[in-house]
C-alpha cells in the first residue's frame, strides 16, 4: 500500500515526536543511574536492604522500611478508592438521571484538579488532629491512605466511567432482551466488557498514589519504620527524597537517587503487571 505524500510527512513527524517522548524516559532513567552509580559501586545494592537503619549522615542506608511504607500507603489507598470509584462510575452511567450524572461527573473532574498541597494542608490541619484524638500521635499510615484515596478516586472513577460509556449499546440491548435486570447486566455484561479500561484506571491511580509526594509528606509523620498498625507513622520513598534533598550532600545525595531508582523500578513492575492482566485480543 502506498501512502500519499502528506501521509508520509505526517508519519515522519509522528515517528520523531514519539521517539522524543520515549527519549525523555530514557534520559530520566539514565540520569538516575548516573547519580546513583557512585554509591552503588561503593557499597553495593545489598546494604540498602540490610543496614540497621536509615541514617545517611552516619553511613546507614536501609531503604526497606520506606519501600514497605510506600507499598502499604499505596495499597491502602487503592483498596479504598477502587470500589468507591467503580461504583460511582456505575451510578453515573446506569442509575443517575442524565442531569444528575453530568453535574456529578463535573464535580469529580473538579476533585481531580485540586492541587495535592491543598489535600495535604487539609489533612494536616483537620484529618491528622482527628486521628490524633482517636489514637495518638495522629500523623500516620491511616492518614496517608485516606488522603491518597480521595486523591486517586477521580482517576478510577473517570477512566471507568469512560470505558463503560464506550461499551457498544447492543450488549445492553441483548442483555435486556434476555430479560436481565439492570444490576445483573452491569455486573454480568458491562463490567467484564470494560475490564481493560478498569484495569487501566486502577493502574493509573496506583501510579499516582506511588508517586504522590507533598500530601503524603504532610500527613504521614515520616518516621522511618515498618509500621505495626495503621496508626503508626511511616515514610514513603517520595517523601524521603523531598524531605532530605535540599540538605543532602555527596553520599547522602546519591542515596536519595537510589531511593528514586527503587521507586522507578516499582512503577515499572506495576506497568508490567497491568500489561499481563489485560485481556489478550
Amino acid at each position, binding site marked *: 500500500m502506498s501512502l500519499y505524500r502528506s501521509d508520509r510527512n505526517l508519519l515522519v513527524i509522528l515517528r520523531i515526536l514519539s521517539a522524543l517522548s520515549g527519549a525523555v524516559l530514557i534520559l530520566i532513567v539514565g540520569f538516575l543511574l548516573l547519580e546513583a552509580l557512585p554509591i552503588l559501586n561503593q557499597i553495593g545494592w545489598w546494604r540498602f536492604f540490610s543496614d*540497621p*537503619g*536509615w*541514617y*545517611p*549522615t*552516619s553511613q*546507614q542506608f536501609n531503604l526497606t522500611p520506606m519501600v514497605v511504607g510506600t507499598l502499604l500507603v499505596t495499597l491502602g489507598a487503592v483498596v479504598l478508592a477502587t470500589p468507591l470509584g467503580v461504583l460511582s462510575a456505575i451510578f453515573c452511567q446506569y442509575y443517575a438521571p442524565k442531569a444528575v450524572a453530568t453535574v456529578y461527573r463535573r464535580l469529580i473532574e473538579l476533585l481531580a484538579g485540586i492541587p495535592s498541597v491543598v489535600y495535604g494542608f487539609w489533612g*494536616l*490541619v483537620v484529618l*491528622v*488532629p482527628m486521628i*490524633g484524638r482517636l489514637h*495518638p*500521635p*495522629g*500523623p500516620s499510615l491511616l492518614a496517608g491512605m485516606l488522603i491518597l484515596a480521595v486523591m486517586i478516586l477521580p482517576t478510577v472513577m473517570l477512566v471507568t466511567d469512560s470505558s463503560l460509556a464506550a461499551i457498544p449499546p447492543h450488549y445492553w440491548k441483548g442483555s435486556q432482551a434476555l430479560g436481565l435486570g439492570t444490576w445483573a447486566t452491569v455486573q454480568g455484561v458491562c463490567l467484564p466488557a470494560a475490564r481493560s479500561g478498569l484495569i487501566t484506571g486502577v493502574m493509573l491511580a496506583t501510579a499516582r498514589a506511588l508517586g504522590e509526594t507533598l500530601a503524603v*509528606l*504532610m500527613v504521614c*509523620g*515520616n*518516621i*522511618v519504620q515498618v509500621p505495626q498498625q495503621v496508626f503508626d*507513622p511511616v*515514610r514513603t520513598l517520595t517523601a524521603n527524597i*523531598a*524531605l*532530605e*534533598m*535540599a*540538605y*543532602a*550532600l555527596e553520599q*547522602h*545525595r546519591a542515596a536519595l537517587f537510589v531511593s528514586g531508582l527503587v521507586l522507578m523500578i516499582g512503577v515499572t513492575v506495576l506497568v508490567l503487571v497491568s500489561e499481563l492482566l489485560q485481556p489478550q485480543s
Partner: protein
Amino acid sequence: MNRGTFLRLMPLGFALALGLQACNSTSASNASSKLVLTGSSTVAPLTAEIAKRYEQENPSARVDVQSGGSSRGIADVRQKVADIGMVSRSLNDQETDLKAFPIAKDGIAIIVHKDNPIGQLTEEQVIGIYTDKINNWSQIGGQDAPITVVNKAEGRSTLELFLKHFKLESPNIKADVVIGDNEQGIKTVAGNPNSVGYVSVGTAASQVQTGGTIKLLPLNGVVASLETVEDGTFPLSRSLTLITSGSPTPAQQKFLDFAQSQQVHDIVQEQYFVPLS
C-alpha cells in the same frame, strides 16, 4: 504565513536567538552586575528582601536569589554555579575553602502547644523525651498523655545544631513525626496539644505574635526570644551566613557589604531575625 515561509524563517529565528543569547552572556560577564545566590531556605527570604533594596539603590545590578538548602548553597559556590551561597549555620572545619559573611543571628527554640501546662524543660528532660526515656507528659508534671516527639529530617542544619547542643546522636532519637521546614513543624505542633518540637526562634516568635497556638519554652532558664538571642544569653543560637568561594570579587564584596550594613537592619528585624551590630 504558509509553511514555506515558516521553514525559511526558522533558521533566521535560531540565529537571532543564538545571537541574543551570546549578547546576554557577554554583557553579564563584562559588567558582572548579575549575582546569583542559592542556598538555605531559612536565609533565602531575608536575602531576597535585601536584594530588592540593593537593586533599588544600584539600578544596574541584578540579584537572583534561589532557595534549596544550605548544602545546595555550599555545593553551588564550590562548583561556581552561584556567586554567593546562603547557609543557616556557621562554617565547620571541613569548609575552610569558603569565606563566611554572617548577616544575622537566629536561635532554635523548643516549642509546645499553647494548652500544654508545661512551663519549661531542663536539658535532661529534653534529652529524655527525644530518646524516648520519657514518653508521657505526666512523668514531668504535665497531663497524662503520650508525648508526640517532632524531629527534623536528616541533613537539616537545625537538626545538626540541636543534636550538637544536646550531645545526641541521630540514631538514638526516637521521634513520632519527622518534618521538613519550620512552618511544617509549627503547624504540626499547633495541631497536636501533646507534641513537642524545635524550630527557628524567629519563625516561632512571629507565629506567636500573629496568634498561633504554640508557645516557646525557655532553655536552661533563659527565655527564648529575639532579645536573648541578640544579647547572646540564649544557649542555642546560630548565625545566618553568606559564603563565597575564596575572596569575593568587587561586585560580590559590594553586595556582601550592603547585606552586613546598618541599612538592612530593619529588614532583618521584619523577618524576625537578629541583626548583627
